[in-house]
């Protein structure tokens, strides 16, 4: 709880400093006041926890993000190719896929990663299954092979 509050404070302070760009005393004091107000409101709303400030993921997330960027670029090229090839070349597919993550956080990260790569969209997330619509049947087979699932599970621990 305490570390989450400190992390929230630093996030908000960075946001203020980058957005304002003024360094006079008055502006900095106003910034401090608004940060304290926001932290008070957020504590009253009771949302300062490991879900809004996921600092326990910090040590593993960067390698996952690099892999995700590579995957996004790869699937972008495929979708662009099929846009120019036309309607005959696509095979839209709808499929339920089982997820192996235990926590809500892991499930949401997995569903959002599917969403971020073009060509696949998560339509629904029920218990431990996601409904995925894909532009190509090959994309579904790639997801069923489970590379992304395995990496998110590694992230979760």
């Amino acid at each position, binding site marked *: 709880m305490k570390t989450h509050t400190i992390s929230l404070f630093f996030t908000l302070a960075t946001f203020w400093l*980058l*957005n304002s*760009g003024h360094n006079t005393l008055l502006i900095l004091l106003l910034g401090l006041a608004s940060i304290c107000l926001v932290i008070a409101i957020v504590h009253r709303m009771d949302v300062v926890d490991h879900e809004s400030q996921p600092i326990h993921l910090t040590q593993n997330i960067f390698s996952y993000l690099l892999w995700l960027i590579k995957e*996004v*670029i790869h699937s*972008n090229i495929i*979708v*662009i190719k099929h*846009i*120019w090839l*036309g*309607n005959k070349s*696509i*095979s*839209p*597919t*709808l*499929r*339920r896929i089982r997820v192996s993550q235990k926590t809500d956080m892991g499930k949401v990260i997995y*569903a*959002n990663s599917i*969403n*971020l790569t*073009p*060509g*696949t*969209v*998560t*339509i*629904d997330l029920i218990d431990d299954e996601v*409904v995925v*619509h894909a*532009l190509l*049947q090959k994309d579904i087979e790639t997801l069923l092979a489970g590379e992304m699932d395995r990496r998110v599970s590694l992230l979760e621990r």
Partner: protein
Amino acid sequence: MDMITNISGAVCLIIGSFLCISGGIGILRFPDFYTRMHAVGVTDTLGAGMILIGLMFYSPDFLTFSKLVMILLLTLLIGPTTSHVLAKSAMYNGLMPELKQKDNVKETN
């Protein structure tokens, strides 16, 4: 040094423009709503990303650079959320996608 940043910025801008126009063609060309959503996904992720990275090469100071990074992060967070919400509400309101194999529909219902 100055020329290198200019040229790499220009290359990023050209790639981004090409991706955005391709996404625009895709949204006109694809047959139904769910496939059009994938075309919008292209312009939301790599199209916007490439144009913003190209602008980062041109940025005069650190504050401008950090604001461009902020816009990039916002775009990457907002794009998937919006497409998921759209797809979910379309599915719950009875708009079924056109599929290649018909037997898949039974499995999801």
